[in-house]
């Protein structure tokens, strides 16, 4: 993949997507994404899951373009309600709510919204640039991956999701393990025998991914009640794009650094924008010029959070396209859609289909331009609409969308029943403090990746497990898992002891 090839590929992709259908599809994706992202209680994952059901009759590449546009729109859209209502539209906008709402209370909502849209735009473009720059490296790395490395990479992703997600790590690992077992339900991909179906015809094909995700991310929210919105008035002053750009310019280096951080988090499987936003926010707080303003309406905080979470989106496509492993939950849905279309990304995929990378990159870029336009001029109107719709009404509408979405994926009423039951399970899990995201990631990766690669590795090693621990890249993966365990458990104690010793000396 050299520069000339890349330039030609991008030019062709740009012309292919410049058709009326292409522009229309990306616009619809971004608009639906912004609405879904801005609506409190409807996450990016849920938006992409609901939109996925309309893509089954499409060409797979157009399907991914629609879903990736929605993901970009939704990741930005969460900042609108976070800033104006102090309610993050998506978890990835939680730090934005902390700072943005303080600015809104001071009558500077337009400043916050402007910084958000510009930082999101820059984050998206930093992520796109890094995606193109690092993809040749990922493809080479993917070629070096054997089944042992694929197994450890998938395990790393599930482990990270269990550790860095919401709640207790032990409960996260339990949820992930349950998800991995659930992923084994159905026909064994290696020898074709039935596993865990107990004679039920419906279970013989395994647990369908789209209804499962709609259940866990959609119905759970419907049951536990969407966030109630009560606001008396919404600021109406227009955002000046030029003014926002000038404000952003003061924090440009912070923005670029947070973009790089966000991209790296996007690449690591299992983390996603929900983690990236906090990493970016924390970096801004640590390195910012105005640390005293954090918590009181810090523009640096907004820049850090929004640049990072939007850079994460292109990053999440790097492992999907090169290794067939999702970088986050929305790209896990994208992967599920690809599998439904019979497309299996992996190490050889981009050699035979390089236009996928270029088309997705151009779609992400155009989505960025569109969300700036739509978000700037329609953002506050959306918030007014949500504020005027009562919570039970919103819950009913979302419940109908979830049922429709679950049914439409396979035209099977049992999928709706399954989505409902899994939604109840998600509600119970939430009540007991068990996070849902690791279970979903385990469900996606269990049967189709970890199981197959584990047994393929055993077959290649003639039953020996030694190569799992002796191959170079495998040892690096194990080292990364060990590093996460160390940083999570041992480092806080070590850090505390060092601090106590320093204080004792002083």
């Amino acid at each position, binding site marked *: 993949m050299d520069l000339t090839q890349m330039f030609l590929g991008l030019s062709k992709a740009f012309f292919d997507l410049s058709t009326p259908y292409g522009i229309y599809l990306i616009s619809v994706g971004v608009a639906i994404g912004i609405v879904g992202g801005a609506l409190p209680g409807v996450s990016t994952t849920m938006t992409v899951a609901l939109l996925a059901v309309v893509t089954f009759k499409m060409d797979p590449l157009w399907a991914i373009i629609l879903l990736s546009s929605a993901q970009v729109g939704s990741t930005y859209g969460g900042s609108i309600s976070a800033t104006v209502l102090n309610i993050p539209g998506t978890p990835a906008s939680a730090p934005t709510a902390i700072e943005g709402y303080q600015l809104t209370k001071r009558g500077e909502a337009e400043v916050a919204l402007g910084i958000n849209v510009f930082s999101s735009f820059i984050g998206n473009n930093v992520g796109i640039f890094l995606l193109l720059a690092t993809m040749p490296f990922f493809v080479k790395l993917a070629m070096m991956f054997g089944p042992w490395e694929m197994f450890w990479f998938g395990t790393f992703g599930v482990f990270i999701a269990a550790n860095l997600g919401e709640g207790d790590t*032990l*409960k996260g690992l339990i949820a992930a*393990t*349950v998800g991995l077992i659930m992923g084994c339900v159905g026909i064994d991909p290696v020898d074709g025998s039935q596993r865990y179906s107990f004679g039920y015809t419906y279970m013989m094909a395994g647990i369908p991914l789209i209804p499962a995700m709609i259940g866990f991310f959609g119905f759970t929210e419907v*049951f536990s009640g969407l966030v109630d919105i009560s606001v008396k008035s919404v600021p109406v002053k227009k955002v000046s794009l030029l003014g926002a750009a000038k404000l952003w310019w003061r924090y440009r280096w912070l923005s670029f650094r947070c973009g790089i951080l966000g991209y790296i988090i996007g690449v690591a499987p299992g983390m996603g924008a929900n983690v990236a936003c906090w990493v970016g926010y924390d970096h801004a707080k640590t390195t910012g010029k105005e640390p005293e303003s954090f918590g009181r309406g810090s523009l640096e905080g907004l820049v850090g959070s929004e640049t990072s979470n939007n850079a994460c989106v292109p990053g999440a496509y790097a492992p999907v396209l090169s290794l067939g492993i999702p970088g986050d939950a929305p790209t896990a849905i994208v992967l599920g859609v690809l599998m439904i279309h019979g497309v299996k990304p992996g190490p050889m995929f981009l050699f035979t289909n390089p236009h996928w990378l270029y088309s997705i990159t151009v779609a992400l870029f155009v989505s960025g331009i569109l969300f700036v336009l739509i978000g700037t001029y329609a953002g506050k109107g959306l918030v007014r609409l949500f504020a005027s719709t009562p919570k039970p009404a919103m819950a009913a509408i979302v*419940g*109908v969308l979830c049922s429709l979405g679950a*049914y439409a994926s396979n035209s099977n009423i049992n999928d*709706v029943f399954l989505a409902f039951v899994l939604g109840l399970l998600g509600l119970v899990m939430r009540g007991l403090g068990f996070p849902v995201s690791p279970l979903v990631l385990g469900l996606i990766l269990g049967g189709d990746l970890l199981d197959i690669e584990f047994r393929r590795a055993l077959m290649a090693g003639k039953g020996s497990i030694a190569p799992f621990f002796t191959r170079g890249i495998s040892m690096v993966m194990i080292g990364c898992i060990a590093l996460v365990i160390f940083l999570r458990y041992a480092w806080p104690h070590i850090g505390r002891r060092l601090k106590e010793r320093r204080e004792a000396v002083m």
Partner: protein
Amino acid sequence: MAKADSDFVAACFILALGAFSFRVAALMISPSELAESPGVFPGLMSIILVILGAVLLARSIRRGGGIRLAQAAKSTTTFFSSEDNRSLIPGIVFPAIYVFLAIPSLGFYISSALFMGVMFYLYVQRWRRWVLFPVSIGITVMLYLVFTIFFQVQIW
């Protein structure tokens, strides 16, 4: 129910689930062809689940958890009678009636219009009464146009 108690109950359930899963997986393991056996991976995950369940159980016992039936009954009553959780019941019961009874009998669009109309009527005080069912029908028509006509998704 105290957190330690709920963790204790959850741990017991997880241990039982892990043990059951391992029992099923073990039937699918052939020692002579371990690598090809369909039960190898789920069996390994089941063992991990049992270990994690045991750790959760030990942790909950250390924090004073256990099965206290009287307290569990009391906290269940308190749970359902509290202001915050009262909305959970219609939040689950009405969608359950919609999904399991209405959709299979009436089809998606009719049952969706009825479901939204009923939910709006019962819980939305801010809107005028006469507007509720037209709004639910309007939303249903919009969904029909978008899903069935425009995106050609087959929904009955």
